[in-house]
């Protein structure tokens, strides 16, 4: 054997968690040593978030033990986890939006009290943001609510790495790059490598397999609440990793040819830069760094065409939200009601919602988009994040609207599902539907017929066909010149 390993920062032995009928964790053992970055991958609902909750103390497993530095921790909870240096960045953002970043820092670090805490908190959080994201341009005195979603995620990450007397030893990053553009994601991953090189430990959860392959020193694959594969870095490549996760390895398909130019179905003149235009049957991508006006354009398009006062039978546009907590799901409702919320007009006759039509519609989409639930009448919150996102897709695609607006809709969706949805988008576009798609992922931009690159609220470049490449998009988003 190799050198004796230092004791694990944290070790979970044989953990099992059940939620009712669902076996979320089925005897999982995982140990994390100093100087290690563990890449954790698996489909939606594979149990990644559950094992993270067990490690950060938020969830007590029905069975299993937790060790740290060779001693058993019992009882184990959030307080104990924090005192051992365990920090977590959640997929659903957790800062208080009405408080400033400094005040949020104070909440996170309880020992920051006493006179002059604002000054000390500001120094701590600023040092951390500067270290991870140089040139971030975030004002730490301002309220969190005014930040863009990418900036919020940056603060959240910096919060986890910040040190106020109790240094972080194990940082869990759950989909940390889902709202970050390529540049920021690279900065974060570089910081993770530095942190690990200095003896820290990281658990990195991501659906972007390249990130995992490039950053992790050990890769753990989960499926149905179990660990199904575990190898050192280099033991996997992209294809074998996808295979280990157990999904059909659909490979990236070439961009579609743009259909012959025809009548635009959607047009909008922006205050500056080029006007926006989308034609029938086209997939139009909105690219550029996060928060440069893409979401604002989508909202403007939506507001212009959606009803305010009177329900319309033939809506012109439909919307897939990326921020599902904020403007996606109705959390008191069942999966079915969530799915049909946008097409009740179609499911009604003589002013009454037809139960049978609604149930049929639900069953149809449960199969088409593979919503993992035994019963569509279960509450929406019983689904994992990725499956909730699938419900939002089904909600939009099942309307008759000819234009679908998508606001970074693939956040937290696994690779297999992504490829299914890509296929669906393509088929719908062939059939004449128009898609306007904002995404922070380059791969998705390459699936579009035409891409507008945004910078500072304006369209600075329009790319078509083969010109859509990571290189051209990045160049346009930094320089503002057409490729």
């Amino acid at each position, binding site marked *: 054997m190799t050198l004796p390993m230092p004791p694990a920062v944290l070790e979970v032995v044989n953990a099992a968690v059940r939620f009712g009928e669902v076996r979320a964790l089925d005897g999982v053992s995982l140990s994390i040593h100093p100087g290690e970055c563990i890449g954790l991958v698996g489909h939606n609902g594979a149990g990644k978030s559950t094992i993270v909750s067990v490690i950060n103390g938020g969830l007590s497993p029905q069975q299993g033990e937790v060790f740290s530095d060779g001693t058993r921790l019992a009882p184990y909870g959030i307080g104990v986890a924090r005192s051992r240096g365990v920090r977590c960045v959640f997929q659903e953002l957790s800062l208080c939006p009405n408080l400033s970043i400094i005040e949020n820092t104070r909440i996170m670090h309880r020992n920051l009290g006493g006179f002059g805490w604002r000054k000390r908190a500001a120094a701590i959080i600023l040092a951390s943001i500067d270290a991870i994201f140089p040139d971030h341009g975030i004002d730490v005195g301002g309220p969190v609510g005014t930040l863009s979603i990418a900036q919020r995620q940056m603060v959240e990450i910096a919060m986890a790495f910040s040190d106020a007397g109790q240094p972080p030893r194990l940082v869990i990053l759950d989909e940390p790059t889902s709202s970050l553009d390529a540049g920021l994601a690279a900065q974060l991953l570089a910081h993770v490598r530095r942190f690990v090189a200095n003896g820290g430990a990281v658990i990195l959860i991501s659906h972007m397999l390249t990130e995992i392959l490039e950053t992790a020193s050990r890769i753990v694959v989960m499926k149905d609440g179990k660990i199904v594969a575990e190898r050192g870095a280099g033991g996997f490549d992209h294809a074998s990793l996808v295979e280990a996760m157990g999904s059909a390895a659909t490979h990236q398909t070439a961009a579609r040819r743009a259909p012959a130019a025809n009548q635009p179905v959607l047009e909008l003149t922006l205050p500056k830069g080029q006007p926006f235009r989308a034609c029938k049957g086209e997939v139009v991508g909105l690219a550029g760094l996060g928060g440069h006006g893409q979401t604002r354009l989508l909202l403007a398009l939506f507001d212009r065409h959606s*009803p305010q006062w009177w329900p319309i039978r033939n809506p012109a546009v439909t919307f897939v939200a990326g921020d599902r907590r904020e403007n996606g799901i109705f959390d008191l409702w069942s999966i079915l*009601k969530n799915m049909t919320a946008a097409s009740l007009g179609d499911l009604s006759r003589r002013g009454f*919602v037809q139960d049978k039509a609604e149930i049929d519609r639900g069953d149809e989409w449960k199969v088409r988009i593979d919503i993992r639930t035994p019963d569509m009448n279960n509450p929406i919150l019983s689904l994992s994040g990725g499956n909730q996102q699938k419900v939002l897709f089904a909600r939009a695609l099942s309307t008759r609207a000819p234009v679908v607006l998508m606001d970074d809709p693939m956040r937290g969706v696994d690779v297999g599902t992504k490829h299914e949805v890509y296929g669906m988008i393509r088929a719908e576009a062939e059939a004449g539907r128009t898609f306007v798609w904002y995404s922070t992922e380059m791969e998705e931009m390459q699936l579009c017929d035409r891409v507008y690159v945004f910078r500072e609220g304006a369209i600075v470049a329009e790319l078509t066909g083969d010109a859509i490449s990571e290189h051209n998009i990045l160049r346009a988003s930094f320089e503002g010149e057409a490729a």
Partner: protein
Amino acid sequence: MKTLLSRPWIWSFIAALSVWLATIAFTGGASTVGLSQAALTFAAFSVLVGIGQMFVITLGPGNIDLSVPATMTLAGTVSLKYMDGQSGLILHGLAIAVGVGVCVGMLNYALIKALRIPPIIATLSMSFIVQSAAIWTNRGLRIKPPQALADFTTQTSFGIPNIALLALLISVAAWVLLHRTPYGRWIAAIGQSLPAARMAGIAVDGNRFVTYLLCAILAAVCGYLLACFSGGAALNMGSEYLLMSIAVVVIGGTAVAGGNSNVPGIWGASLFMFLVVSMLNTYGLGAGVRLMMTGAIIITVILLASGRTANLR
């Protein structure tokens, strides 16, 4: 039985039934019929305004209509003044009452929407304006309602007060509206998350407007009936219905945070609210003790009802 107990509205009925039994037991069954009929009659008025308030509360946090009592008063005075005791003008009077409701509802939402005033302030200020209008039209006159209408509101069919039958009919319609139509789904969606409802393509403004309109119309109709029932409109006739309309919604098991409402609970709660007062009256307690007991009993019922397991649909 278990599914029945998990219904949020069941507790208000259990509470109403126990208070009813306690009162009957005290009087030795002497006034069973009278008490029940009175309870049904007075509950019916609370039900009418409660249903309107329930729709508004469904719209989510911050949505409430405080102009209910003033609307009742204005609708009652104006329609009675117009009918002037003539039975031929009953339907005209009703139309006028509904018209008053439509105006108040429209103005309410205009304030909320155009001036961006929070609903609680908008409807409160509206209630002052409406109340002043009622004072101005009333001028201390006490006009008798048309005899036919007064008879209808005070008499019974098959042993059940006509008013209660009417309220039952409207309750059924409200239930259908809430649970079987797109409109009901839409307002429940708006109540859970306004941004999500907007992004799902729901006409948010239209639905909210219709809801405030509906609430004001129900209040106006209730005022019209109450004025006829009590033999004339009075300027303070609506005052007790301000808190009553909110209390019956909450005790009935509707989520105060919006998005999850139920109609049956309003009946249980309305009966309960009337029966508690009459029970304490029967026991012959002083006014102070009576009010304290009322408060304590309401708190107990709410605690019992909220102890139920979360009822996610």
